[in-house]
């Protein structure tokens, strides 16, 4: 019997895009947060160039307020696949007085990441930054091209985007500009989870249900941590939770869950009536929170 490749449309499309990034740009980088989407992207990148090594480094913008499980996972992955990792620290910019830490009840370092990201892009001369953003995540993301041009301040001009025809990706830019590239634009949250299951991709343990010290505010479950502001009257309790998205600790809420393996996680998401970003506190700041951040250069 001949051996026939079974192809998955979304996987093949993503690999095509990653290969175009490498062919069209001088200095691409993969933005790696340690979350499931960037882990999936890394997996696709390895497939795209196999048996060669992936021809670009990873950049992690470390807020300093990450979940320790994510950082451990990141370091193991780098070791395992002999990856080239660059870490840019938000703390460095805070120490240098370039950005100012937020204070108060909803303080987060999420917004501060943008400056560190833009600095790193400039310092290393990256002309293409690949990310695991998906169009189904948020309404402003739904508008983004696969190759999204940013000016030399990293800004997104949402009302004047380049036309993008067929699969003809135009990565030509002026010096100083960069392109944000989104190979898994067309995937949904469930597509990512199903892919993780079928490919047996390892992900950080915090995606699975575990016991954690948490407190409730505004109907959301927050991690109890020195990085997360908590009022005295907000009571801490140990609960079974998991994370649906992994960002900065201060802006990522947990969900109550008993799903301890991939099958139950997928079951839970399939039945969920709340969107993935429903637990992202940073998106709730205003109706246009994501759009505003992206205009400023946020990923």
């Amino acid at each position: 019997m001949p051996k026939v490749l079974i192809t998955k449309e979304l996987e093949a499309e993503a690999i095509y895009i990653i290969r175009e990034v490498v062919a069209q740009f001088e200095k691409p980088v993969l933005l790696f947060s340690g979350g499931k989407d960037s882990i999936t992207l890394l997996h696709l990148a390895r497939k795209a160039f196999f048996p060669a090594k992936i021809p670009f480094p990873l950049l992690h913008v470390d807020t300093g307020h990450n979940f320790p499980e994510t950082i451990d996972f990141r370091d193991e992955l780098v070791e395992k696949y002999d990856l080239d990792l660059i870490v840019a620290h938000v703390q460095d910019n805070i120490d240098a007085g370039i950005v100012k830490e937020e204070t108060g009840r909803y303080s987060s370092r999420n917004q501060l990441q943008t400056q560190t990201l833009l600095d790193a892009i400039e310092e290393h001369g990256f002309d293409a930054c690949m990310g695991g953003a998906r169009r189904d995540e948020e309404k402003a993301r739904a508008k983004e091209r696969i190759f999204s041009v940013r000016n030399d301040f990293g800004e997104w001009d949402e009302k004047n985007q380049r036309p993008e025809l067929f699969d003809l990706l135009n990565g030509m830019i002026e010096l100083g500009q960069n392109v944000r590239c989104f190979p898994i634009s067309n995937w949904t949250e469930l597509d990512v989870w199903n892919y993780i299951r079928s490919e047996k991709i390892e992900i950080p343990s915090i995606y699975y249900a575990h016991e954690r010290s948490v407190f409730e505010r505004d109907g959301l479950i927050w991690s109890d941590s020195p990085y997360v502001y908590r009022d005295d009257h907000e009571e801490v309790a140990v609960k079974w939770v998991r994370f649906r998205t992994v960002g900065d600790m201060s802006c990522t809420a947990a969900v109550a869950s008993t799903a301890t393996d991939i099958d139950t996680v997928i079951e839970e998401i399939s039945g969920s009536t709340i969107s993935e970003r429903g637990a992202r506190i940073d998106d709730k700041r205003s109706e246009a929170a994501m759009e505003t951040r992206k205009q400023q250069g946020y990923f």
Partner: protein
Amino acid sequence: MNVLKIATAGSVDDGKSTLIGRLLYDTQSLPTDKLEAIKKSSEKKGYDYLDLSLATDGLVAEREQGITIDVAHIYFSTPDRSYIIADSPGHVEYTRNMITGASTSKASIILIDARKGVVEQTFRHFYINHLLQTSHLIIAVNKMDLVDYDESAFAKAVQQFQSLLDKHPSEKRKVHFVPVSALKGDNVVSKSAEMPWYQGSPILENLSKIDTIAEDSQSFLQVQNVIRPKTEEYHDYRGFAGRIRGAHLSIGDQITVLPSMKTSTVDGIYFNGAKYDEAPVGSSVSVTLKDEVNVDRGDILMTQPPADLELTKNIQATICWMDSTPLRPRTKFHLQYGTQRMTCRVEQITSKKSADFHQDIIDVDQLELNDIATIQLKLSKPIPAITYDQSKELGRFILIDPQSRNTAAVGFIE
């Protein structure tokens, strides 16, 4: 699970966003928190119904103006299939964004207001889909609730649209007419009880029957990267990475490299470290060849090229001009043809389409934003003389402005 990409088109206030919102709502694809936000906004605006159009417009300017400026990609699924809708703008000035949305779609839904019938914008939307050779058109005659679900209003719109189709015949195109009320949910996901005279299927059922994979006789791959690991295990490995188009590819297939016209045989088809005897259309693989032929990025590996296949540096094409700077003859551009880029010069603007697309205007000095025209191009390197009609992948290109680097036009080789 297979994915069907569809685009929507329609004039302002034809109810495009409402239709998409309805598709999401009736397929239970709207999460509770998004639905809550829609409820709140609808109440704030004083509506006594759910303004499902709020499910789509993503930009602040769009919400303020109540129009769609740029394409949004929206996702929903049924147990059998995933759908990606490119929600495209209807305004004339955003035509290029509409083409962006429609270019990747297998099917288009064109909305018509049952009260107004075919209007000027319908011509534009139809013509763009005609140009792109979109294989399935669903003509949704919307707002049937506002004409008391009257069959004659539907029949009138169908007849008007049919006369458009008659002017631009195509064997490859399938057209379905559906009377709907996106607001009330008639014939969108479920069949309407209000229109017993309509014997056809609701929109979603029509979409569910569209075949996504069709094979041609020849297979081809435009090389993206040449993979040379130079490790001990893969010392002599030289894989040509790209997506397989046209038909499936098998080991042992004879191939011709374009434009060099050198021939060889497929020795291996690799994906993620495994070797396969056969790979289907659409797969992103790496191919190795039996002979040491020179192959670069942009070259095309093709099985069974037509015997009379020519390579040419002179092409005629229909283009849509997408830049705010007008196009003048004798201007140079980068031409992106699949995965290769070359210099080209616009020799001549042969003619352009009139605003209603019924006439060809000759003696044109320049093209303005959103003009559709026929031009003559001279390329710095030869490409196969294959028209868009013969092959969608090999018959299309984009023009890139060498100064601004913007995508200035999309072209269809004639």
